[in-house]
């Protein structure tokens, strides 16, 4: 229901308007970062999630990396596993 797009912080807010400059594939817009709590201490190069001109969250790059590794782990290695699995009637029963 809510379009949120990742963007890279390229310039921190210069005044108290909380407007930072964010780049999405080279397209730039001022985005309000006032909803992010201070603990998150933003810095240029951070990635944030943009929704209607506001940053809703800082993207956790470690979590993203972990998710991707998990996904890629499902790849070719698993194909072998699957082949063994479907090859055996016992495996099917095991479900």
């Amino acid at each position, binding site marked *: *229901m809510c379009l949120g*797009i990742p*963007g890279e912080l390229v310039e921190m807010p210069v005044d108290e308007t909380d407007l930072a400059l964010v780049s999405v594939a*080279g*397209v*730039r*817009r001022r985005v309000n970062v006032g909803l992010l709590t201070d603990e998150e201490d933003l810095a240029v190069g951070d990635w944030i999630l*943009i929704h*209607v001109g506001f940053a809703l969250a800082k993207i956790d790059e470690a979590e993203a990396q972990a998710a991707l590794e998990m996904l890629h782990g499902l790849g070719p290695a698993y194909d072998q596993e699957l082949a063994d699995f479907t090859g055996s009637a016992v495996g099917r029963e095991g479900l």
Partner: protein
Amino acid sequence: MTALDGEHAGGGTRSAGWAEDAVARHAGAEHLRSEEQVLERIERTRRRRPRVREDRITLAHGAGGKATHTLIEAVFLEAFRNPVLEALEDGAALDAGGARLAFTTDAFVVSPLFFPGGDIGDLAVNGTVNDLAMCGARPRHLSASFILEEGFPVADLQRIAASMARAAAAAGVEIVTGDTKVVRRGQADGCFVTTAGIGVRERPITLSAASARPGDAVIVSGPIGDHGITVMLARGELDIEADIVSDTAALHGVTADLLDAGGDGVRVLRDATRGGVATILNEIAGSSGVAVVVDEAAVPVRDEVVGASELLGIDPLYVACEGRLVAVVAPSRAGAVMAALHAHPLGAGAAVVGHVAEDPPGMVLLRTTFGGTRIVDLLVGDPLPRIC
């Protein structure tokens, strides 16, 4: 969940007249039991002659999508019906006094009038030149009419005229007649331009959106959506900046090279303006009674257009170009056509984006980068920025 009665809602309850009418109009329709039957009925309904349901013109009627098609068919085609118009091509192919001519007209309203990469003047010349080129014609003469708003700066008009002159010289056409009207302040948005053009069809070929055949290659001549995104951003309302310029260009040169290479293997040429590539492909699929299958990964789109489109929630396939053409070419000539395109500066980014298939007729299908398939339908109106 607390279900409350209507009376709790404050000011009472009424019904929506238009919705009740719509239900009443279809009251006789029997309730179908199977999905296939329902889908078939929808297809029948869709094929019916369109009616304009709105009482007033809305912006959607000018967006090039379903609403525009409905308006054209229900109002203009209904009033002017003749075989040439019925083809609904970019221009009319005419035989007059032994000459094979192409004739077209186009009205230009763009806000802002000046944008990165061009202005309304370039658009007005290139747009009409391109419509003639898409008929396989060599553009020759143009007319230009101006509707000006009281108070419009003369300097701006001079700037527009200068870029029209430049564009005409580059396209090898002359603006040979014209007209000027001024309306009261508030009755127009600065400056509207209408151009018409005549070209000569020197080649013995007939191009038509109805000529695509299964197996044909579908080609676009370069990255799509540049113009639409540029203008959308240039309006300033979205506060988005990008290093991107309109692709406005006269395509007669690259078209001539393409036709030299492809000969009668070239079946359809269209410039992908309003409504973008998706709209053109739907027209081709509909007119030819074929399916058009597009490979998402093969469609050239610049990073900035992707970025802006993601941010605004729109699909670049529906975004306007002003210097890109879509060609449908017999498979045997596709290689030659691609080589010719790549040899021309305006075709350097050309790509085969898909092919024509038999079934389902009238449909545009997209094979997504994700490995799925979906239908690419006509939009009702403009692609609107969305937050959902």
